[in-house]
Each structure stands twice: as C-alpha cells, then as structure tokens.
C-alpha cells in the first residue's frame, strides 16, 4: 500500500497548499463587512468544468494507484511469474502518443481560432485512440492464443485487468471527444468549444501518462527503477 500512501501524500500537499491560501487562521468573527476588506478566500476563477476535470483526474489516479498497489503487493510474493509483454504494446504506445499529440494540436489550433485544424486534430486524435483500443484487443487475442489466459496466473489476471481499466477510461474519453467533435461539426462557435477541446486534450495526456506508468509496471521497468533508487538510498 506504499504507492497509494505516497500518492495521497502528494494530494495532501496540494490540498494543504491550497488551504494555506485560504486564510484558515483568520478570525472570522472579527471580519465583518464586505469581502473586499479581507483579501483572499474568494471562489476560484477557473471555469468549473476544468476544476471538475481536475478533481475527476485525482479520483481516477487514486483508482489506478490502488490497482498498482495491489499489483505490487501481489508481485512481491515468491511465486510471481510475469507474462511476456507482447511487442504489439510498443506499437500501441506509439499510437497513443500520436493521439495525445493530435489533441494538443487541436487545442493549440483552438487558441488560434483555427476551426479547420481543430477539427483535424480532434478527428485524428479520436481515430488514433480507436486504433489504440483495437491494438489492445489484438494484444489480448494474441496472448490468449499463446495460452496466457486471464485466470491461469495472477500476473496474467493483473495484465488483463489493468489494460481493461485503462481501455475503459479511454473509451469514456472517446464519448466526450465524440460529443465535442459533433458540436464542432454542427458549427458551434470556436470560442465556446475552446474549453471542451482543452479538457479533452488534458484528459488524453492523463491517459497517456497512466498508460506509460502501467507499461513500465507490466514490463518490469519500474522494478528496476525502484531497485536503483533503493540502492542509491542505501
């Protein structure tokens, strides 16, 4: 459970930093009058949807970190036999990077009010995300064909579980992306759409980050990394 504790510490630091801006040591009974007299503590100026996405990403991170915690607790037992990671995953990773880049492109275009490029970025991002998901399914199929079934070994179960949870989150993102694209298609004002495009791009970068962490875990790179850190410390 050390991964989740570490992650929650990070969350606690962020929350603590934010709270420290809120004048929690003020004596409110002495502060009577319009708020202008007492600086700080007003509502945030960010759009609500962006804050909402931020909170959601924190929740989704907790979910993934808990899966990772479970994975690492199970992995430390002696009978752990990792399964060979299919080569295809590297191709998929490349596709997901492209997808993320396309949405970034779209966001940059939205800031320039360049409707055409926004649309291209959204479609390219969506299409490559679909290709990524198809690639993941193909990887599952190949593993199954090679005899690595979901229930035959804990490492296999975790592999299928982690990739499935990631895929489902990405699918959820595709729904939001689809809605944004549809609105653009119907000719919504670019100024209105800018926020939606930005949120999609943020979510895609998050999904890419999660995927890279999971990939590092599944290929065993994270272990090596942790080992090196441990050696450096000791």
């Amino acid at each position: 459970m050390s991964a989740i504790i570490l992650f929650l510490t990070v969350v606690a630091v962020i929350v603590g930093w934010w709270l420290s801006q809120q004048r929690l040591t003020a004596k409110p009974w002495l502060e009577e009058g319009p708020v202008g007299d007492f600086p700080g503590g007003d509502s945030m100026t960010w759009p609500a949807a962006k804050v909402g996405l931020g909170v959601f990403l924190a929740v989704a991170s907790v979910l993934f970190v808990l899966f990772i915690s479970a994975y690492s607790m199970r992995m430390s037992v002696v009978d752990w036999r990792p399964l060979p990671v299919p080569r295809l995953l590297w191709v998929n990773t490349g596709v997901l990077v492209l997808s993320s880049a396309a949405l970034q492109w779209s966001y940059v275009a939205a800031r320039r009010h360049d409707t055409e490029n926004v649309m291209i970025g959204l479609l390219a991002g969506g299409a490559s995300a679909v290709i990524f998901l198809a690639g993941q399914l193909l990887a599952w199929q190949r593993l199954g064909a090679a005899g690595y079934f979901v229930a035959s070994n804990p490492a296999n179960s975790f592999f299928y579980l982690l990739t499935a949870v990631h895929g489902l989150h990405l699918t959820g993102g595709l729904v939001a992306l689809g809605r944004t694209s549809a609105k653009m298609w119907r000719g919504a004002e670019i100024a209105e759409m800018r926020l939606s495009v930005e949120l999609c791009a943020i979510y895609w970068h998050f999904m890419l980050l999660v995927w890279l962490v999971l990939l590092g875990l599944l290929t065993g790179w994270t272990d090596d990394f942790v080992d090196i850190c441990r050696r450096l410390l000791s």
Partner: protein
Amino acid sequence: MVDIPYEGIEGIPPAEVPDVELYHPRSWWTRYVFSQDAKVIAIQYSLTATAIGLVALVLSWLMRLQLGFPGTFSFIDANQYLQFITMHGMIMVIYLLTALFLGGFGNYLIPLMVGARDMVFPYVNMLSYWVYLLAVLVLASTFFVPGGPTGAGWTLYPPQAILSGTPGQDWGIILMMSSLILFIIGFTMGGLNYVVTVLQARTRGMTLMRLPLTVWGIFTATVMALLAFPALFVASVMLLLDRLLGTSFFMPSLVEMGQLSKYGGGSPLLFQHLFWFFGHPEVYIVALPAFGIVSDLISTHARKNIFGYRMMVWAIVAIGALSFIVWAHHMYVSGMFPQFGYFFATTTLIIAIPTAIKVYNWVLTLWRGDIHLTVPMLFALGFIITFVNGGLTGLFLGNVVVDVPLSDTMFVVAHFHMVMGVAPIMVVLGAIYHWYPKVTGRMLNEAMGKFHFWVTFLGAYLIFFPMHYLGLLGVPRRYFELGDATFIPSSAHSLNAFISVVALTVGFSQMVFLFNLAWSLFKGEASGGNPWRATTLEWQTPETPPGHGNWGKDLPVVYRWAYDYSVPGAAEDFIPQNQPPRARKLIQGAAS
C-alpha cells in the same frame, strides 16, 4: 464592548451574476422526476435512502428476534440470519447513511448555504441519483434471486464470500458487487458536484472561514469519499473477477467442500487492506457531515456562536487527513505483519485528540448559552452522549492489544452501532426536524417529535450500552445461536431478550416519525422563512420552500461569518450572514 455607528455602508451590490444557464423544467416529468434541480435530487436521494433503510430496519428486527429468542422463530434459519446481518450492515452504512448525508443533505444544503443557484453540473447531478437508484434496485433484487442475497457479512471477506459454504454464493454476491460498483460510479458523479460547487460557486463574500460547519463537514467528507471509494471499487472489481472468471486475486489454494479448488496464489489479506482503506475513511465520511450539522444545530438552538470555530475547522481537516492512515486497526487480528500494530495503534489514538476537541467545543458552546430545548436540540444532545460513548469505546478497540480479546465480539458491534449508527442517526433526525420547515414550509409536530426523541435516544442507549458487556464477556458476533458454551451464563440470554424487546420498540417508534413527516406536510403549522431565527443563508431565501434558482434576481452577498448569535448590542439575537453591517463591533477581550 463598545458599539460605534458604522457609516457609509449601505451594502455593496451583489456580484455580477452571468446569466447562468439554469436548467428550466419544461414539464411535470422534468420538474419532479428527471429534475436537475439539486433540491429535488436531494429529496429523491433522501426518500430512496429512507426506503431502503426501512428494509434494513426490518432486517434488524428479524435478526434481533432470532438473537433474543433463539429457536422460537422457525422461519429464520442460519443462512437467512447471515443474509440479514450482511444486508443490514451494507444498506445502513453505504446505501442509507452515505447516500443520505452526501446525496440528501449535501444536495439540499450546499447550494443554499454557499449562496449558489444550483450545483455546478446539474445534469451530472441528476445522473448521479439515477445511477444510485439503479444500485439500490440491483441490491434489493438480490432478495428475489435464487439463493438470495449474500451472507458473507458486510465486509465480504474472501475466500468465504465467493465459496459455496456461504449463502448467496451464486447470484447474491455477484449482484452485491455490481451494486457497489454502480453506487461508487453514481457517487463519484455527485461528489464531483459537491466539491466543485463549494470551490467555485460560493457567492460573493463567502470565504471559506465564513462557511457554516455543515458545509465544511460535507465538503471534507466528500473529498474523502472521492479518494476512498476507489479502494472499494478496486476490491469489488477484483472480487467479481475472482467469482466470475476464476482469477485468483484474493484466492489462495484452498479446499472447497473437500475438493481442491481451481484457485491459487491470491492473498485474502490484500482484500482486507483494500476494503479497510475504504472502510475506515467511510466511518468519517458518515461522521464528518454529522459533526458539521450538529455544530450548526447546537449553535442555532443555543443562540450562541459555535465555540472555537477555527479549531472546529482545523479538526475536521485533520480528522479527514488522519483517517487515511489508520485503516489497519480493523485488522489487528487478521494475521497481518504484527509490527504494523504499533504504527496503527498510535495513529488511531492520535485521531482521538481532534475528535475530543470537537466534543469539548460542542459542550462549551452550551455554556452560558440560551438553550432552547427544541426537538433538533434534543437530538443534538442525544448525539453528544452517544457519540462520546461510542468514541470512547473506540479507544479500547484502537489500542492494539486491547482489541485482541474484544475484536469480533459483541463489544465491536455495540461500539460501531453507537458511534456510526446511533450517533449519526441522531444527527439525521435532528437535521430533519431542523430543516423540514425549509423544505416544506411547515413545522413538524413537536409533541410527536419529543416522544420520538425520547424513545429513540433512551431505547438506542439501552440496546447498545449493555451490549458492550456481552462482548466483554466474550460473546462473539455474527452467531446465529450461542449454543451451549460454559462461559456464557443464562443471564446473558435474558439480556439478549431484553435488548431485542427494546430494539423492536425503538424500531416501531420510527413509525411515529414517518407519520409525523406525512401528517405535518399537510397539517403542520406554517413555519415562515426562518422559524429558528438562524443566520445561515438557506434561511434567508426569498421564498420558502426555495424556488427554482434558490434566490431572486440577485445572489445574496455575505458580510459576516455564520455564527453571529447574541452579538452584544445587536437588536436581535441573530444577524443573518447577508445582512450588511450597521454598527461596527469593537470586541475587546473576545479577540484574545
């Protein structure tokens, strides 16, 4: 204290409110059923939670019948008994208390108390309720599937939960897991709303330190729930896969009914870690809203500011943070690495300090107050007694070595019922008596209310206080029958019978309350907008019940904290938060 006239302020203009896209109901259906208005959603949440809660109440009667009079009721067998306790626990903790405090009170009170027109994502908020309803229906359906609901205990520990020695192993456990997963998805939708509304939609002047403690409690609990429920989600998904696909996340090699099972290599303790990583914060997810609400009840009905507001806020935040590093105190005898005991006992007992501060501040608020013994106040007093009692027995169970003899006995059952059953329910009931006039425009009948309070409070205390001593004696929990054990005297059986009789009485007295709710809706005395003469914003709405959008043309502007009761020199003994200052306070001494 000296009052000097304060000139030049006529009140500042309200914040420029952009024409928010308030959702406008177009038909009866979208007004009352598929409504996106937080107040309607709150009522939907509350009614659904109460309905499923009544099922859990009936289950508790059935199990008390069996415990008090073993062998008398032949229609209850051992399997059913386990199903009753499991469903009772799960419903009460998650589907009633969590849903009621956050989905019910959170939805109703947050927008009103922070001066917002609605939640920030009304559509997601509506979805939240419907997913919750679906979760409740899936849960309720387990009573009608072959094999019935799961009887694995509300903790659902594997391997037992998914093996054939446990009732409800085929459909019950699968539907239970599915229902939990749905609940968590639904809750996350609602939780995002509560958090972002508090962060983003506070009206002009509503700084964090001017928030009523109710909002602080619900807000902190929601943040905790958003971070803790994923652990239950992860555990549920993995257990579901173990059951359905035959994976072995939690399942070691084992013998099932004399046969070597297909499972192997999993860890039952992993489930317990995940479960309690959610389960312990869950206690505070229920408790913190109760803490917040009861602070406001006490302050309003004692006509006195809450004592030590800042300390109360800090304590809420501290408890919220600490509760994430105490989970393994539920696992002292689970067989986990014994050295963990030192750490978790220490953190657990440290959490008693901020909690104790809250208790002190509640009773110190009463000191030199002007205590109106209204029904909400009575429930608040009842809460303090039951919470202090339950909190103190927590010091037994949190102290690792003391937990060894007491764990898994009736002492634990008595403890958690007192601290997270009776005490929060006292707050729920007090809060309903307090806010019912705002929701309906009518007062609840006071005579019925007082009867309801005394029977509920004294009865619940009589049920759970002696139960501790059964646990001390060594009576284990989750036993269909005690059977003959030499250490259990026959007097223990008499005590069990007594507890059962009181439990049934308390249970039936809730019918008076339900009748009161229905009767007062039509016959209750008209309450006016602010019957308790309270300061917080929800009592200052232009209409009662608050209309669509809560406020009239302009949002309220906040000039002061939420607890200006009995301010020296003020004409009334309360000053609403949105009342512009007329006289500047010069408080000498009080500032120290």
